[in-house]
């Protein structure tokens, strides 16, 4: 466990030493503040538009952080050959995967906390109320989603040759699931034969990230909170899927030749 925590600590340090997070945060803050200063029809109480844009930027930024951070972990260790002394410590390959995962996930959590704090301040300054329960639920579900995304990034980094291809494919997969993942059953219902079965198969196999993303709408439009049972269910589903992805990553990484 100590090895896992030590590895996770290194990943977190790496995040705050790199400029990615700062650039994304400053851009998000700048765009949101500029939009927040715009008055539509001299009405100062308009806020949902601003919350929508700000949350979109936060989602985009955190996906960039999660995917790029997780995609480069193992390839960077191999390229700099630091993976050999690391595994000779002794750190098992499973501990390496777990350490990298927790590091990336906690780093995403820190980034999320900063982003959502800014979001809460921005919306509170316009709405003159602190965010409701659904805001915290949206934040939590966002973090659970990032666990799955980090798992996908780590798996991609073991399967694919370069971090750039892992990043690109992960982005396409995540955005594709967010856009159409939840509607594949509807598509399959209008098909027949093997193709319908295949689409249904894909529908059940992909991680349903759209659940976590949809909660954003509830936060923007000020709906009531999600029943805790469903939040717990989504958390369990996210944890199981992340466990599956990490297990698969470990299986592939265990047999992988590390020589360049």
């Amino acid at each position, binding site marked *: 466990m100590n090895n896992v925590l030590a590895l996770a600590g290194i990943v977190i340090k790496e995040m705050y030493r790199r400029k990615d997070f700062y650039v994304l945060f400053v851009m998000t803050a700048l765009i949101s503040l500029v939009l927040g200063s715009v008055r*539509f*029809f*001299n*009405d100062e*109480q*308009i*806020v*949902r*538009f601003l919350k929508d844009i700000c949350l979109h930027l936060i989602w985009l930024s955190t996906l960039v952080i999660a995917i790029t951070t997780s995609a480069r972990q193992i390839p960077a260790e191999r390229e700099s050959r630091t993976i050999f002394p690391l595994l000779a410590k002794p750190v098992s390959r499973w501990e390496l995967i777990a350490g990298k995962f927790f590091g990336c996930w906690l780093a995403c959590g820190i980034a999320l906390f900063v982003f959502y704090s800014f979001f809460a301040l921005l919306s509170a300054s316009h709405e003159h109320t602190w965010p409701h329960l659904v805001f915290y639920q949206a934040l939590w*579900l966002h973090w659970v989603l990032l666990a799955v995304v980090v798992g996908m990034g780590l798996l991609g980094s073991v399967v694919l040759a370069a971090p750039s291809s892992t990043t690109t494919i992960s982005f396409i997969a995540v955005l594709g699931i967010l856009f*159409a993942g*939840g*509607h594949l*059953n*509807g*598509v399959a*219902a209008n098909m027949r034969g093997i193709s319908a079965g295949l689409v249904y198969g894909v*529908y*059940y196999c992909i991680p*349903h990230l*759209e*659940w*976590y993303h*949809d*909660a954003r*709408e*509830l936060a*923007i*439009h*000020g*709906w009531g909170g*999600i*029943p805790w049972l*469903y939040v717990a*269910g*989504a958390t369990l589903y996210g944890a199981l899927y992340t466990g599956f992805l990490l297990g698969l990553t470990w299986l592939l990484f265990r047999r992988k030749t590390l020589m360049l």
Partner: protein
Amino acid sequence: MIKLLLTLAFVGCVTLVTLLDPPLTATREKSGEGATVLAMLVGDGRRMFANQFFAKADEYFHSGFYPTIFDEQKKDDDVTGAEAKAGGDKGGKHEEEETFLGQPRDWVERFGRHFFPTVHTHLENGNQREILPWLRLAAEMDPHQVQTYLTASFWLRSALNQPKEAEEFLREGLRANPDSFDILIELGYVYDFNKNDPRSARRLWELALQKWKRQEAAGLKPSPKAQVEILDGFVRADKQQNDLPQLLTDLEALKEVSPGKEAIEKDIEETRAEMVAPGAGKK
């Protein structure tokens, strides 16, 4: 030699710009397409964005309860205020009706429905203001989409009590669409309902009727409903000004085109009775 060619190419470019820019600018100004930052960035594709932004306003009006491109579309554009005009306030929930969601097909869909809005509501209590940024952007993207101006004005003058902003936005729309009788009708409502100025409202509706008739003469088939709205506006203005002879004339004209002939006939009889009564009518 190369330097000479480069210099010639540069001089050629500058000459072409000075030749081509004035006619292009004139064409743009003539078509009422101001060179806003958004227009310059997105080009002609902005009309597509305008439709998207208008749909976004409708989505906001339903607080996020809105079909995606994958859902069965039962388009009613509630945001246009048509329902509110016809049947009074329809704010609040009406969850009993069947929605585009239908029954969930499987456990994934059933579970997922707890994470997004699944109740059909309309914004109320002044929260209608939340749709305005999208309507503003839609107008920036496509200044020729008249419905955008009408929708924004309807909410500004009714639920939000901002007639000044409604008038400014409508006048902006009128500059981009000088032949639109719909905008003039709506502008008349601002003067009639909010500014309590039936005389100015009537003048605007007269102008609207002129434009409507011009379009009809040109074979453009303008909406008959608009003509009814204009004549209905005349009648309301006449009643407010207590101008009985004009009211009678306008009621007769309205009877010709309105579907509710019986009610108008009754109005005509009442007006005639009032006219023969001693001391009635101002003219």
